[in-house]
């Protein structure tokens, strides 16, 4: 499982309220979440997410269990999220919707060229290679299937 894209750098403790605010939750229209992602942090950010790799600080995705946070990022076209640590529900949710969440400590500058290879266990930023914590076999299988729902269907 691999991915490449320009880096969008974020700080520590990015919470799910910042990723998608509570006021946008009451809809089934996923494009709304993508459009308003990170609105309270930086309203221009949503426009830069397509094809990008988010490189966040520690405790990425802390706060509520809202799955809309990871769906928003996936719908916005985010290729993967790299962080030294994730809030555990966000981490599970990301895998479950098919969004690669990669635990690695990297040095990030906005727009840097980021690449990752989950099977080999590394992340590269502008050619500099960093180790990534390996995922369990099952998590990789879920990611490969595109998320837990398609994985479930394929297992039946």
């Amino acid at each position: 499982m691999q991915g490449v894209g320009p880096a969008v750098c974020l700080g520590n403790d990015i919470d799910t309220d910042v990723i998608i605010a509570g006021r946008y939750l009451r809809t089934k229209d996923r494009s709304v979440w993508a459009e308003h992602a990170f609105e309270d942090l930086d309203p221009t950010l949503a426009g830069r997410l397509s094809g990008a790799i988010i490189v966040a600080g520690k405790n990425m995705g802390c706060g509520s269990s809202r799955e809309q946070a990871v769906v928003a990022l996936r719908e916005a076209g985010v290729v993967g999220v790299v962080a030294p640590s994730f809030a555990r529900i966000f981490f599970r949710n990301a895998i479950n919707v098919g969004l690669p969440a990669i635990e690695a400590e990297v040095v990030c500058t906005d727009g840097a060229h980021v690449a990752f290879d989950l099977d080999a266990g590394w992340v590269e930023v502008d050619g500099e290679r960093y180790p990534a914590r390996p995922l369990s076999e099952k998590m990789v299988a879920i990611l490969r299937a595109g998320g837990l729902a398609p994985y479930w269907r394929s297992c039946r």
Partner: protein
Amino acid sequence: MSTLSERILGAPAGAYVDREVDIAFAHDGTGLLTREALREMEVERLPHPERLRLIFDHIVPANTGMTATLQAELREYARSSGIELSDAGGGICHQVMSEGVVRPGMIAVGADSHTCTLGALGAFATGMGATDMAAIWASGATWFRVPETIAVRLSGRLDGAAEPKDVALAYVAKLGMEGATYRALEFVGDGAAGISMDGRLTLSNMAVETGAKAGIFYADGVTVRYLAEYGVTASPQTPEDCRYEREVDIDLSGIVPLVAVPPRVDTVREAEEVAGTHLDQVLVGTCTNGRYDDLAQFARVVRGKRVAVRTLVVPASRAVLARAIASGVLADIVDAGCMVMPPGCGPCLGAHAGVLGEGEVCLSTANRNFKNRMGVGGDIYLSSAATAAASALAGEIAVPEAV
């Protein structure tokens, strides 16, 4: 020798295990996504509907036509699939589950991050996302990584005007917002026995604010008596002499009223230091402090006086509301000029009633003060019910008097 998480999950810390769950619930928000995921997974029949619950609490009663329609769909789904529904007005999911449903030794999962609240009852309780929940509803089981445990060792007794919420803010400040990520907390030590079940629920509730997966008390006499009130028989759990990854000591007698200042829950000051901060709204309620003890504390302070700022009081459940009516606590709250809202999450997540305006400041008894959580441009301070009461009377943050 095992921690309580290891005992309940039946494996040592670090192991990945597949386990049947005893109770799995979702609310009106996450329930919709769970329903969607089940549809996507093409699951028709749920094998164990008796273990599942749907609880409407986040936006109750519905605020728009769209919310009402979505809730009606979910209501119909609960009916057709045999899931017990606690409809609007019944209360907050964690509170409803604490009232005789979750018991010591159970594995409970909820599609809400504050499911850790239920650890107060000696259960392994943790939050999940909606797709995980859908897979659990479809199969009855899920995977866990057995967590390492950090002990929060409580000694002494609370005195003065300090409340369990102040203890919660104290340990969150000590551990920090990611100090316990992927870990479980166990509240142990002689001081634990002196904390009521309402107080334990407050302490367990905020475990997730340190990144923890669970926040657990061992069931004891307090637990057994609490559950007996709901007609449930339970037995105490005896702690074993286990190895904790880390220990944090808190002397309860040294705790004073505390306040978390925006926008981080781990930025905690003595109420004294921020006294005088102007307030536009006070909120008493939520899954952290909307229980009977909290309402009674609040009423004790405001009884016979008038609040100086708009004050919203939201009982955590219908049972809490009924008890507050029966004891006269509710009348005191209403007479003091507060608005009483229907049991539920109320303004906690800024999704409907009680939203803050630009530049407004709220003192809330909730657990999160993230930027814009209660409305764009609003600031949130977090405190106990007693501090909220003293502050509501003053119209600014004020230190409550000792009892």
